[in-house]
């Protein structure tokens, strides 16, 4: 296999005091191939947003490496990092908070271009701004408006245009749909899918919405309390989840179809606080299959079939067919 575009190795991000750290991301590794969309799913506290930010070095990692085309971005000088930033972009969750309310849309996009020295000169930059707005389904004249003049869906389109302004190769999309209504969500999903195709983008798609991940992603990483539970091709994951947590997560998401079996509560109790994560397997306190040995050591992420990785010591459970 050729070098992946992005490779994350043993990534750790701890917050707070070093004697009692909050392990937001704890030894996470994955790779994203050129043109691939990798989904990052998990509930609150799983570390998915922190991973997205650490991958772009918006947050400094505590340990581990992020390689872009084989180069460790943690080692780059600030000058080289600044140049690299135009290749790596992010779309944020909240289109209300991520656009400066005092700037016109044209100025927001123009700033991104000017910062990276793209399309030098006022005229060329203005033309590019109009092009970008059309690319995301808005009109050139929208450049003179302020963010408050747009609806949520339109603002998210502007967020997408801002990320695309600098012609990136790789985009972290951090819950880009969760602030949007269903009817607007599908417009933005189509926009992302279409742009990904046209611009051959590679994407890290962070979401808690399993239906969207199933639709949009090629492969999925399932996280729980800062650790990877399972990595699989999307179809395989949704057809037969192997890790007990993945199974529970899928079982808990209600399908919009009353003829399908209702969700069942596979998990009791709350997600533990990341400040006091359980020893051994972090999922063991809620796992219906936990045994004493699960507390002993952190289960390794093992390749159980080609392209399929699971971190669970209970192999007989992993291979047991999901109960119908």
């Amino acid at each position, binding site marked *: 296999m050729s070098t992946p575009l992005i490779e994350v190795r043993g990534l750790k991000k701890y917050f707070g005091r070093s004697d009692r750290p909050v392990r937001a991301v704890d030894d996470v590794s994955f790779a994203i191939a050129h043109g691939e969309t990798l989904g990052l799913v998990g509930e609150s506290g799983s570390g998915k947003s922190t991973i997205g930010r650490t991958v772009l070095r918006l947050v400094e990692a505590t340990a581990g490496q992020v390689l872009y085309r084989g180069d460790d971005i943690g080692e780059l000088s600030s000058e080289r990092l600044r140049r690299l930033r135009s290749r790596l972009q992010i779309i944020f969750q909240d289109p209300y908070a991520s656009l400066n309310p005092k700037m016109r849309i044209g100025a927001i996009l123009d700033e991104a271009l000017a910062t990276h020295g793209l399309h030098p000169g006022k005229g060329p930059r203005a033309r590019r701004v109009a092009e970008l707005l059309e690319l995301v389904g808005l009109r050139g004249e929208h450049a003179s408006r302020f963010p408050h003049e747009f609806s949520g869906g339109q603002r998210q389109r502007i967020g997408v245009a801002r990320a695309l302004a600098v012609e990136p190769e790789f985009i972290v999309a951090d819950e880009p749909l969760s602030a949007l209504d269903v009817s*607007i969500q*599908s*417009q933005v999903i189509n926009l992302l899918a279409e742009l990904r195709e046209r611009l051959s983008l590679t994407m890290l798609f962070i979401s808690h919405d399993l239906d969207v991940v*199933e639709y949009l992603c090629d492969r999925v990483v399932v996280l729980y309390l800062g650790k990877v539970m399972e990595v699989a091709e999307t179809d395989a994951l949704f057809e037969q989840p192997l890790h007990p947590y993945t199974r529970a*997560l899928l079982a808990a998401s209600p*399908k919009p*179809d*009353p003829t399908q079996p209702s969700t069942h509560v596979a998990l009791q109790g*709350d997600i533990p606080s990341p400040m006091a994560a359980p020893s051994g397997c972090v999922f063991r306190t809620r796992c219906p299959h936990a045994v004493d040995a699960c507390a002993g050591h952190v289960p390794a992420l093992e390749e159980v079939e080609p392209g399929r990785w699971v971190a669970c010591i209970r192999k007989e459970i992993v291979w047991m067919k999901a109960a119908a």
Partner: protein
Amino acid sequence: MNRLEVRHLSTSFATDEGRVDAVADVSFAIRAGQTTAIVGESGSGKSVTSLTLMRLLPRTAATRVSGEAWFFDRAGERLDLLALPESRMRALRGNQVAMIFQEPMTSLNPVFSVGEQIAESLRLHKGLDRAAARAEALRMLELVEMPAAAQRLDEYPHQLSGGMRQRVMIALAMACDPTLLIADEPTTALDVTIQAQILKLMRKLQAETGMSILFVTHNLGVVAHHADDVVVMYAGRVVESAPVRPLFAAPAHPYTQSLLACLPSKARVPGQPRPARLFAIRGQVASPLAPPPGCAFEPRCDRAIAACRETIPQLLVTEEARQARCIRVAAALTEAA
């Protein structure tokens, strides 16, 4: 038997730019012991409907409310929630009619322990003394399956997780044994595994007490599995209402049809490649300050015709227990007749 019958409910607010009809001519019913879900997107008027029924709209909003909301109380008496004197409404609210909200952190009082908050309601509505109210509060926390209930009694909302706070809200709502529970997006702020627990709890309590639930939500997955009847709202009006299975199997209104078609989970058929594009409803909801002259959904509707722009269509009975507000549906009915 119905627990609540809402007829021609309208709520409007005064804004700087003029009066806005947040809810217009809404009618629906909730059967005893059953769940009716109101679904809709932002600005559809679903939350304003529930707040109007509870008479909890802020007075500063210069609201104008019309219509009727007939509530059948435990004694079998028929009361119009919108016309009841405030003193009687206060006796009913938090007692026979209770409400839970999306964000339990903002609806619980941060300076009182959860036990005190539940006990207060019991003292007020049931006249219990302090000791009895505290004992009953503990029983309520146990009823909602609060882990380590006795210890939680003296804890404050900030010490609890989101799921536990929602359990406290439900304990508070259940304290006076309501016959109608209004739940406004009760699980929207929760993770899916916690959402599943709370929904199961609500079902259990409903089965045990026979209460009716008005479930306000935007989540069609939750509606599919937790509602008996569904009311679909768009731009302040009911566009369709039906029992849950027929609604999902054969939605009548173009908005309901489109809404279901946009869901990514509906786009994939097992064993087949995923479609290149999802179905999308074009445009966005019109501003309530400048509503379209006819059907509010007309500018986004693929089946719209010129007549759709002329008048607002009536909500018509299409078959037993089903209604839709669309002139295409009306025309089909006339043809069939």
